[in-house]
């Protein structure tokens, strides 16, 4: 086998595995969401389909695929059909640059555990991730429904506001690490003491809060906001297109959780064992990401929804100044050569 063919083959296997993993995790998350919400409300949750309800996502998928699809009168049919795809795609694209693990050697092939390593990985994540708002606003606008439109408007206003804080929080980490390459950022935090969460606790906090707003999750789920807007931007959607919005939301959650792991918790770094085997590193990455995914669910069933003006106030008057101050201090420290940790 020529090296070029082998490289393509390796790349293909990696991409299939990582996307399969992403979609599989998203499926598990739909079940986890229902299970965790049930447990927190003294309930049991889905337990009829398969042992412990494990086949529930498959049953849901079959149901979604079989359902009739409706397009409301007066809807912009092209945009209405395209919006769910636009909502689901960005999260699936951004997962490409997440470094899940270091070099792996299987059968004489050595490769890094990520679809690709971009020099500007952090920038790529932000650029593509920012496109997610298009799916939401187009879905809301093209439905020809006031609830959808209001939901889409709110969601886009919120996502744009919080994206600023998100970017500024990531920028502080980039300043500390001195690189936009996510792999370089990970390699800068091999041991527990080097994890960015200790050098940048404020950035971590801001990033976590902003990631909730970016993925339209509680307590910032104004895009849906059931009591006020029926279903928000996806009120008029049905069948698999409806499911695609949720697939996008769950994928975005997974990407945000793995990004949080990558930027602040050393990605695949195993505490107290910097030279651990790559499988252990992958397990560490999965565990850290699972915690942040659980945090999404945990917060959802704990906090009440914000009011929209409170959300904007928090975004512009608290998060943004805090993120700017953090970036200013970090930048100053880096420029003056002060060791932050």
């Amino acid at each position, binding site marked *: 086998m020529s090296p070029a063919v082998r490289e393509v083959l390796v790349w293909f296997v990696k991409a299939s595995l990582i996307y399969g993993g992403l979609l599989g995790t998203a499926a598990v998350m739909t079940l986890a969401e229902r299970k*965790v919400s049930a*447990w*927190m*409300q*003294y*309930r*049991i949750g889905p337990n009829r389909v398969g042992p412990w309800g494990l086949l529930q996502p498959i049953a849901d998928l079959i149901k979604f695929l079989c359902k009739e699809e409706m397009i409301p009168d007066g809807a912009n049919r092209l945009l209405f059909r395209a919006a769910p795809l636009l909502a689901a795609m960005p999260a699936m694209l951004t997962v490409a640059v997440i470094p899940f693990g270091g070099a792996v050697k299987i059968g004489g092939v050595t490769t890094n555990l990520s679809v690709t390593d971009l020099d500007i990985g952090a920038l790529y994540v932000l650029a593509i991730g920012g496109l997610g708002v298009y799916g939401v606003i187009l879905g809301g606008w093209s439905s020809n429904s006031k609830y959808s439109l209001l939901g889409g408007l709110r969601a886009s206003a919120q996502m744009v506001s919080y994206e600023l804080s998100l970017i500024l929080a990531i920028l502080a980490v980039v300043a500390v690490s001195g690189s936009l390459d996510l792999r370089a950022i990970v390699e800068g935090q091999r041991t527990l003491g080097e994890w960015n969460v200790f050098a940048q606790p404020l950035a971590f*906090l801001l990033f976590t809060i902003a990631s909730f707003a970016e993925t339209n999750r509680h307590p910032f789920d104004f895009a849906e906001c059931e009591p006020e807007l029926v279903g928000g931007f996806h009120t008029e959607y049905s069948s698999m297109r409806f499911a695609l919005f949720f697939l996008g939301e769950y994928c975005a959650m997974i990407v945000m959780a793995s990004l949080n792991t990558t930027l602040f918790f050393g990605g695949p770094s195993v505490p107290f064992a910097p030279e651990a085997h790559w499988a252990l590193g992958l397990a560490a990455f999965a565990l850290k990401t699972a915690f942040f995914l659980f945090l999404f669910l*945990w*917060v959802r*069933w*704990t*906090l009440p929804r914000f009011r929209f003006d409170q959300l904007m106030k928090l975004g512009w008057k608290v998060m943004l100044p805090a993120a700017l101050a953090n970036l200013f201090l970090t930048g100053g420290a880096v420029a003056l050569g002060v060791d932050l940790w």
Partner: protein
Amino acid sequence: MIVRRKELSLAERVYLPEIARGLALTFGKLFAKKMTRQYPEQPLPTDEVTRGQPRLVVKEDGHVACVSCGLCEAACPAYAITIDGGETDRPIEREPVRFEIDMLRCILCGFCEEACPKDAIFMSDELELADTSRAALLYDLDKLKRPKSALQRRIDYVYRINQRWRKPSSTS
């Protein structure tokens, strides 16, 4: 009423400690005892006071206690009961040839039980009522018959609460 807002402490205004407190609370609930009843496997517990669907008592001699007097039919506020009486050679002389209760009409009020002078109809503890057609829910004699032993708990209960009005000799 004037609602006075409580002055918030600094920790409450910063919001984060309160979020941590809330998260701790919900995390504890994760392991709390579950309230769910797994319905078909764990049916609702019934009691002697449970007023389920009416059923006809079949006495030890194998005949229904009903003499088709029509009092339950008259008492029924939902017109769910239809009775056609017929003659029999037994000493009681009358028995129902048709006794139908439309379960879709029955409101489980128990008036038939109260009206019956012969202790022939009682509210059972059978609560589940589901079928695929209206015709299947029109219960005839065969579907309504229950041995007396199956209804004994309810019969005893009705006797007990009716003691003050019942003449000692009137029991059948």
